[in-house]
Structure formats: structure tokens, C-alpha cells
């Protein structure tokens, strides 16, 4: 079995055997989204204005909080070292790890989003663009989160350091992601912004594995 398929298989097996690691970030998303109407009032018109923003911010926080399961277990049991000592090209192994993490943490968000967007009174014409934007955007968030995770996995008390490092980098994805929904709601074309997000995704695919590998080497040498 090629290393990519083997890595995907391993990561998905591990993920499904600890269902908590998958479900908890999703529950965070669900609960946090529900906090907003409780905080700002149930006025449907007002909620529909903030719906896209609330979904996006909560989604990116959920992705960030789920990043811990990406490298920590491997770091602690020594598998990460073995990964770095593998003669196979690391670039693709890392992409496979991040992809499998997105499949269990980002993709469920894309699927859950329409339900909660609708609960926040997002008009129907905004739902599909929201899903499309999340579909392209959440992998970017996962990859940037992986860079932050690689930099902090070796630190004993990193706490919310990951948030401090990564959240500023999430801003463009947030801005364009909500922009897609706003454009759709104003009957403007969304293809330009989706293409922009797509370009960011490709940039992330090309460059983040390099940063992740460099950061993992540092963390493993601690």
C-alpha cells in the first residue's frame, strides 16, 4: 500500500476509534452557534444579518480547537519521530495527514452549517454559497492550523498559544468566506470570491507542508 493510502487509512482508523475527538469539536460548534441568539436576542431580521459571520467565526474556532488531535498523540507516543525518519517523501505524507484530519473535522462542519445557518434565519439563497465557501475555506483553515500545531506540539504549556498564532492568519479566509455569502444575498456573482478562495487553497496546499515539516523537525528535536 502506498504511504499516502496507508497514512489515510491509519488516521481514519484512529479517528473513528476515538469518536470523542470527532464529535466534541462539532458539539462546540453547535453549542457556540446557539449562544449567539441567546446573547443578541431572537430578532430574526437581525440574526439573518449576522448569520454568515457567526457561522464562519464559530467554524474557524471549532477547526482551531480540533487541531490538537492532529499531532499530539503522535508526538507523545513517538510516531512523529518515526514519520520524520521515514525514507518516503514527507510532503505527501503530511498532506495525507492533514487531509484525513479535515475529513473528520472540517467536512462535518460543511454538512452541519446549513442546518444552523437556517436556524439563524439565513435566507435560502445564502445557504449553498455558504457551503461552497466553507468547503473551500475549511481545508485552508486546517492547513494553517496544522502549521501552528506543528510549531507548538512540543511545548509543555502552550495553552492558547495556537490561537494567538493562527487566528490572525485566518482573517482573509473569514473575510472572503463571509463575502461570498453577502454577495449571494445581494444577488451579485460569487464566482470571483470563490476563485480567490480557491487560489488561497492552492497556495496553502503548495506551501504549508513545507512549513509543517520544518516546524515538526524543530518540535521533535526538543
Amino acid at each position, binding site marked *: 500500500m502506498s504511504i499516502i493510502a496507508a497514512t489515510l487509512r491509519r488516521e481514519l482508523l484512529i479517528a473513528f476509534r476515538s469518536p470523542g475527538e470527532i464529535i466534541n469539536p462539532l458539539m462546540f460548534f453547535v453549542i457556540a452557534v446557539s449562544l449567539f441568539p441567546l446573547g443578541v436576542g431572537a430578532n430574526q431580521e437581525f440574526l439573518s444579518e449576522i448569520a454568515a459571520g457567526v457561522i464562519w467565526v464559530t467554524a474557524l474556532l471549532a477547526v482551531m480547537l480540533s487541531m490538537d488531535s492532529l499531532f499530539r498523540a503522535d508526538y507523545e507516543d513517538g510516531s512523529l519521530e518515526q514519520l520524520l525518519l521515514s525514507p518516503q517523501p514527507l510532503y505527501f505524507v503530511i498532506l495525507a495527514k492533514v487531509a484525513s484530519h479535515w475529513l473528520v473535522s472540517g467536512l462535518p462542519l460543511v454538512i452541519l452549517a446549513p442546518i444552523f445557518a437556517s436556524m439563524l434565519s439565513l435566507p435560502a439563497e445564502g445557504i449553498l454559497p455558504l457551503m461552497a465557501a466553507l468547503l473551500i475555506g475549511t481545508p485552508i483553515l486546517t492547513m*494553517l492550523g496544522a502549521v501552528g500545531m506543528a510549531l*507548538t506540539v512540543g511545548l509543555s504549556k*502552550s495553552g492558547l498559544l495556537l490561537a*494567538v498564532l493562527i487566528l490572525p492568519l485566518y482573517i482573509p479566509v473569514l473575510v472572503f468566506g463571509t*463575502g461570498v455569502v*453577502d454577495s449571494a444575498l445581494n444577488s451579485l456573482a460569487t464566482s470571483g470570491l470563490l476563485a480567490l478562495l480557491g487560489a488561497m487553497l492552492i497556495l496553502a496546499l503548495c506551501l504549508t507542508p513545507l*512549513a509543517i515539516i520544518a516546524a515538526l523537525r*524543530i518540535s521533535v528535536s*526538543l
Partner: protein
Amino acid sequence: MWQWLFKLSSPKWFYTISGQLMPWLIAITSILLVIGLVWGLAFTPPDYQMGENYRIAYIHVPAASIAMGCYYMMAGMAAAFLIWRIKMADMVAKACAPVGMTFTALALFTGSVWGIPTWGTWWIWDARLTSTLIMLFLFIGVMALRSAYDSEAAGAKACAVLSLVGVVNVPIIKYSVEWWNTLHQGASSLSLSNTSANPPEIWLPAFFVGFGLFGFYLIAIILRTRNEILIRERRTEWVDELLSTNFGNNISTNEGLG
């Protein structure tokens, strides 16, 4: 010239050369700043749109530009450190983060001061202030990462990686915030980067303040870097000699090592 640059990558030479340059740099910077600030803040004519209140721009605009340049310099040093393993580059990069953070904070503060008379509020989510705020977060992030690492060497490499990831994002963030701002245009179309044609009496002081602030930036970076050199090279002979000639023989930096 390459030889001179190459020499600068040795901590001892950097320390010596910067020590010789500092008095000149301080003198020139002081003159530029005094001339520029007094002229700009006191003697220039009032702007036809904003009255007296635009003067804070003399500090705000160069502060913001220098902060941005500082991030790029930090990233450049990070690249030099990672690619060619020049330790001096990391020492300069380490100095860039707090200095950049301070200049960013200065830009934000002066922006707020400008905002109060102009818009009646000390904060507004316009493109400039927002992207300056994000730049502040980026600088703080680099400083937080460095202090989280116990190992000096590993921390240096980690910050270098983070700086490089950040520098790719800086133009993307700037562009996205500007775009976001055009979409959510507030009531005011007055931006802090007002570039209406101004007569020389207005922009000449800006040159003085601009270069003066840049000189101040260099002084801050060099002072911090010199400090870092003394700390990291404390076990070498030349530092030992330096400290004992300056502070007497009570200071020994070589205790406990064979």
C-alpha cells in the same frame, strides 16, 4: 560591499561597527526628529479639510510604514537564518519583534488620537487601522512563540518559520481587509491615508519626521541586537574582556565551565 555585509554576520564585528556608528546615528536622528516634529506639529499651515487635526499624521504615517517594513525585515532575517544559518540574523530578527510591535502600537495610538476630533470616536474599523491592528497581533504572536520555547536554538528556528508563514500572509491580509472595508463602508469616506495634493510646506516636515523615525527605529534595533550579542556571546573572550574593562573584574562570565 559583500565583504562588509559578510563581516556584519560576525557578532563581534557587528558590535564593534555599530558601536562606532551609534553616536553619529543618534546625533542625526535627534536633529531630524527635532526639526521635523517642531516644524510639522507647530509651524505648518492648517489643512483645508481637517483643520489643525491632521498634524498627527506626521507621526502616524511613518510609524505605520516603518512597522510594516519591520515585519518584512524580520522575515528577511528569518530567511537568512534558516537558509544560511547566520546566527546574527536571528539576533536581529529577535530585536525586530518588540520594536515592530511598539511602532505598530504607536501607529494605532496616533491613529486613535487623529480619530477623536475627526470622527468623534477613538476607534473605527477602517482598512488602515484594522490591518495595523492585525499586524500588532502578528508581532505579538512571534514574541509569544519565542517566549514559549525554553530552548533558545529551537525557539529561534520556530520564530523564523512563523515569520515566513506570516510574511506570505501579510499582503493577503492587507488586501482582504481593504476589500472588506470597501464592502462595509462606514459613514466616513475620509481615510487616514489622505493623499490629496499638498504643497511642500506640508510634506517637507514629513520627510524629516519620516527619516528621523526611521533613524530611531534603527537605533532601537541596534541597541537590542547589541544586548542580545552580549548575552549570547557571553562565554567568548572578547565579551569577557569588554565587560571586565568596562565593569571591572567583578564580573566573570566563565564560571562553571571547563
